């Protein structure tokens, strides 16, 4: 193939069937289960079912767990320690620092932009000596596993465009999400589960919204969309049999759907019928495999302890982190968590405490748990949001409260695991934590690096739509080699 993707796209389904010996299963490629893997529990050597066939080069990561912190976590209270902010608290930000920056309508009307320091103490941790604030005591303990990027930056200054940008590569709706690009490119490693699973923390009402498009397929076929696993009954929509219908009834029904399908195939000769029959079988398998994975009741106590008390409550971030590990164990390729609520325009100290309490321990536990199971070697874990927050206060600084507006010019994320340097920090910001002073990592660079770790050349995974070859990174993106192990 001279270029990937497009040829196959134009490749008609039936032509594909006719020409390959792979047969029917190929139909189901994508986010939804890869049937090409034989019915064995053993892990496949290669990934099948994606448009790429094989990755462009040997992947470091077999799967990704992306712990998305929606709303824009404040780097100033977490990882990007700037003592000068405390020292200069209440004074105006120097014009030389904020000059030229476009501000949101939330704070652009302010008469003054007063410096505000972190209300939370910072310390150096681990052998790597990473600065982490007291808000994240558990994360602080595992800093030697982490690679911080303090020079992330984005183009957007508001939530919707910014989160859409980091998750789909474009600020405006219509493009496929990262996970669906990966499903499209790489297919699935698991025969019973989707390759792209989404977990959202429950009960975060009032927070900045999420949108289906963040795990949507955009212009890619819909089998590449993320499948949301939800706490409670019906963990995947429509998974449960209707009331009164037992598994046996269902099995019988499926057998007859299959028999009718075969009759119909004999008459019409349409291979799509058989592929659809296969989908019914996979649906049936999912009815067992999904509840099984969602049932965390058999996890031992020390695991609950590790992830925190919340992990027993379905739908919490902690429970979702635990589920993420279970999904990773079963080779789900892209596990996307969302935790909303980081949008600290005002009342920042209280908000940060709450958010960190919900997330710090489970995040650290997940990474340690993966490590102790040997999964961290080939699992990439990402923690981060859509942008950062200003070094100046939005609104009045009072004795115990202040706020920070959106800040696109720098923010901090961390990564851990497959192919990533450990105990490492990349990129730096000025003394106010406002502008990047070295090693800028733009959102497209981040995306390119993510793909690279999965063995994909981000410039070569594309899809032709409306006359243009689209890719996740648009026409940008450089792999950040410096953070690669």
């Amino acid at each position: 193939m001279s270029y990937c993707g497009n040829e196959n796209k134009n490749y008609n389904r039936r032509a594909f069937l006719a020409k390959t010996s792979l047969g029917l299963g190929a139909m189901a490629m994508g986010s939804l289960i890869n049937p090409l893997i034989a019915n064995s529990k053993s892990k496949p050597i290669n990934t099948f079912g994606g448009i790429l066939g094989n990755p462009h080069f040997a992947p470091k990561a077999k799967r990704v767990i992306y712990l998305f912190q929606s709303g824009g976590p404040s780097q100033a209270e977490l990882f990007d320690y700037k003592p000068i902010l405390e020292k200069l608290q209440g004074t105006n930000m120097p014009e030389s620092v904020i000059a030229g920056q476009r501000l949101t309508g939330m704070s652009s009307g302010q008469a003054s932009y007063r410096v505000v320091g972190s209300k939370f103490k910072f310390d150096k941790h681990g052998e790597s000596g990473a600065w982490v604030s007291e808000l994240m005591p558990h994360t602080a303990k595992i800093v030697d596993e982490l690679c911080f990027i303090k020079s992330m930056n984005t183009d957007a200054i508001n939530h919707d465009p910014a989160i859409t940008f980091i998750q789909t590569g474009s600020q405006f709706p219509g493009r496929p999400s990262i996970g669906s690009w990966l499903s499209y490119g790489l297919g699935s490693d698991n025969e019973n589960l989707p390759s792209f699973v989404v977990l959202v923390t429950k009960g975060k009402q009032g927070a900045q919204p999420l949108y289906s498009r963040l795990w949507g397929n955009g212009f890619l076929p819909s089998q590449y969309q993320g499948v949301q696993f939800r706490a409670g009954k019906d963990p995947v929509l429509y998974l449960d049999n209707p009331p009164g219908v037992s598994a046996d009834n269902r099995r019988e029904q499926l057998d007859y759907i299959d028999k009718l399908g075969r009759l119909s195939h004999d008459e019409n000769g349409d291979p799509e019928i058989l592929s659809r029959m296969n989908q019914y079988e996979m649906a049936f398998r999912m009815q067992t495999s999904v509840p099984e994975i969602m049932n965390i009741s058999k996890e031992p106590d020390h695991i609950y302890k590790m992830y925190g008390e919340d992990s027993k409550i379905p739908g919490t971030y902690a429970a979702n982190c635990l589920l993420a590990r279970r999904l990773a164990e079963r080779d789900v390729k892209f596990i996307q968590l969302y935790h909303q609520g980081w949008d600290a325009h005002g009342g920042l100290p209280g908000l940060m405490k709450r958010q960190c309490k919900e997330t710090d321990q489970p995040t650290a536990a997940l990474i340690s748990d993966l490590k102790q199971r040997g999964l961290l070697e080939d699992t990439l874990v990402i923690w981060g949001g859509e942008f950062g927050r200003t070094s100046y206060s939005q609104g009045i600084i009072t004795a115990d409260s202040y706020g920070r507006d959106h800040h696109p010019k720098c923010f901090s994320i961390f990564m851990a695991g497959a192919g990533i340097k450990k105990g490492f920090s990349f990129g730096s910001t000025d003394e106010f934590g406002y502008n990047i002073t070295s090693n800028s990592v733009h959102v497209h660079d981040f995306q390119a690096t993510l793909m690279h770790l999965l063995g994909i050349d981000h410039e070569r995974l594309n899809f032709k739509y409306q006359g243009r070859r689209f890719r996740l990174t648009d026409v940008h993106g450089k792999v950040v080699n410096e953070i690669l192990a």
Partner: protein
Amino acid sequence: MPPQENNLFLTDQEKILLYKWIENGAEYEEHWAFIPPKKEKIPILNPGFIAINEIDNFIAEKLSEHNLIQSPLTDKERLLRRVTMDITGLPPTIKEIDDFLADTSENDYEKVVDRLLLSAEYGERMAQEWMDVSRYADSHGMHADGYRLMWPWRDWVIKAFNENQRYDQFVEWQIAGDMYPNATNDQKLATAFNRNHTMTAEGGVIDEEFRLSYVFDRTETFSTTFLGLTLGCARCHDHKFDPLSQKEYYQMTAFFNNVNELGMTGDDGNYGPMTPAVTPEISQKILDINKAISEQEEKINFTKNQILNISKFVQEIPSKENTKDRIFYGEFEKIEGKILDNNKNLTSSTTTEITDGFKGNAARLTGEYDELYIHEVNGFEANEPFSASLWVNTTKKDSTKTQTLMCTTGNKNSFWRGWEFYLDNNNRLNLKLINSLPHNYIQTRTQESIEINEWQNVSFTYDGSSKAKGIKLFINGKESPTEIVFDQLYKSILPIRTDNHIPVLQKPIRIGKSYRGFTGENGVFLGKIDEVKLFNAELSQLEIQLIAFPKNTNFSENVLSAFKIHQDKQVINEKSKLKDLVFQKIQLYNDISEVMVMEEMPISRKSYIYTRGEYLQPKEIVFPSTPQVLNNFSDDLPKNRLGLSNWLFDEKNPLTARVAVNRYWQMIFGKGIVESSNDFGLQGSRPSHPKLLDYLSVSFMEEGWNLKWLIKKMVMSYTYRQSSKLNEKDKEIDPSNKFLSRSPSYRLQAEMIRDNSLAASGLLVKKQGGESVKPYQPGDLWIEKSSFSHILLNYRQSQGDSLYRRSLYTFVRRTSPHPAMTIFDAPSREVCTIKRENTSTPLQALVLLNDPEFVEAARVMASRIQEEGGKSVEQQIQYAFRLTIGRKANSEELKLLEELYEKQARYFTKNPIEASKLLAVGESKDFVYENVSKSAALTLVASTIINHNEAYMKR
């Protein structure tokens, strides 16, 4: 030439092709799609082929070229189902099947086609397709993704299709209906097409950035939908493949750039420009009330003139200012805590400084957190006269900022509703009465500015007319010459709450800062304020003068005569009548839904080329024009949307007819003659049957852009009526069925699959039009993502009939579309979609098996077949099969289904409670199941039939 970084290489085959072309003389021809279509000669039919109409001649020609033959005609039952689905989106009824089977006349099929084209469901089916193209939705699509009301436009689309409005007119109205002389309601409503794009209400976004994105969306939707061009590629740079320059992109944007619209709207609701969606009766009422109002206004003027002519004396000149109508007076003498003057109705948000004032002390406002409030004052409606006066001494004059003096106006989430008295960026006095921005408000401002660092009295009076001229502005007691900025107010100005849109009776009046928020322009007043007075009456100029100069007794004659009129009983009486009429008008309009439409601004906005499409980087100015590679934009045409719509349907336009014909071909045959139906450019696919496309395109124009003619032509063809069975030879030569040696077969669209099972069960409610409905949807899918929209906070499932409407009417919330629809590839409507994907996934199986929609349909069908299908189980199963699949099951199929029935019946006889549970799925309660276990078993049989591929595949 694609740049090297793109990593695009020629395949060996392509290289050979190039060599061959060079060998043959390398003749260059313009891209086919840019040359206007010619009516091709109908090919002569080769022996062995059948042609019912011209389509078949063209198809047969290609088939013989590729050594393929036609398939035999399909059987009558399959043909009827196929054509009924394609034309109406619904399956045929048993009676329709029986009638067709019994009809042995020669034109039996044509009769069916004619009947279907005349059915009301035809319009719905066509509208369904148009909804994807026009990215129709019931929510805004970005951020809060709140409620929008656009369904009256959807209903107009259905009507237009059913009335078989000419396609050119149908499109012209949607592009420029508002610009027609004396445009009708429908013509204005049609332009909602260009307002269907997503919008954001996210607080703090930069208005221009998003406003421009809407203009881009319109431009690109226009190009994709009507021209099949990927003009969007030229937003950032010249098109890499097609002859479309970046400049041409921006010239096209200039057509769509002259709308007085907002970039940042509110979370829920529609934003102007709008047009009322009204019945003729309401239209008449509007005319009537407006007439009554102008008559009353004339009457008042007449009375005024009469009074002036009678005498020149005022009986009694007041010596003191008006305190009778004064409802609030703030002196700003002292502050304790946050309360001023010991008056709990005058408070400060902080501890405002009290300083030397104009009279006694005054309040000094020093910054953005320093505003004052007046409490317990009832809000004014637009028909209520009111006045205010205060002394100000401002230190600020900022060309980018305003200063709010007094206001009740809200923020984006309350449509900014209320009134605001403020100094603009030039320190001119302004009064604004707002129902909703940017289209429903009045605004008047002074021509002169007030001084800084000087005490001045500023006042306004308003007469309750809801007209801008009813506002008078005064500086130091003197009426100041004004200009009207905007003059269109027809709904309430009573402030409403942001979180539920319920009117607030007594919203605190803010002094010194607006309630706007989110924009960075908060109306912060800097300086001193004193002697604030509020009146629930329109004061006369004399009274205003008395406030500014209490000791003054020397009034001009004009002031005196104005006062005389002001005092006159008859005038007062007539004004009170006017007040009632204006109130009636407001009430009438308040109940009218308005749809977002296009409306040209009187003065065109400047359009620019933007570097990389970024709003911050405008380069050169451009004017409306169309791409050079297409037909010339004639000098005779107006350079606006009206001209654009004429240009589009100029017979020399090489694309319009082809693109439309191709899209409808795609609708009927599953795939366009140009497979890339959204790209007719150089990167698009070549037409499989170029001559056929051109023949149909020219004929379509000759037939007066008659859509029913076009659809009929397609479905009448032999090609359409063939069997869809795939034989070995076809599989080898033409596996993708490019040449149509058989009728295409593919999975039906999401909506059709659901509608089919609703229709088969008898649950379908065929009501046409109206508000979108919310059928069953699992989980808390809305609130778990977003809680910004109060109208769409929770998915509130519909009740009764609304559960069983056609899927066309299912509510489309863009950031969380109905999952069962999405699973079957229905788009989210965030952008224009010309062509849906057609996938096959396990989730689709789960929907058909477990979604209560389909389970309920199955169990209701179980009841129906026992009632209507005959006595024996065999007959009943056969009936279900016919209802769902449109043909009789053959003996093998029947045998299988009966077997399944037997097994299930045994189970449910043993487990009657389980049977009852199954029979309780869904909301419909009208069905009595005498034999519970039998009914449950039949339910599973019906479900099996719904899951049979022939139910959801086109065959």
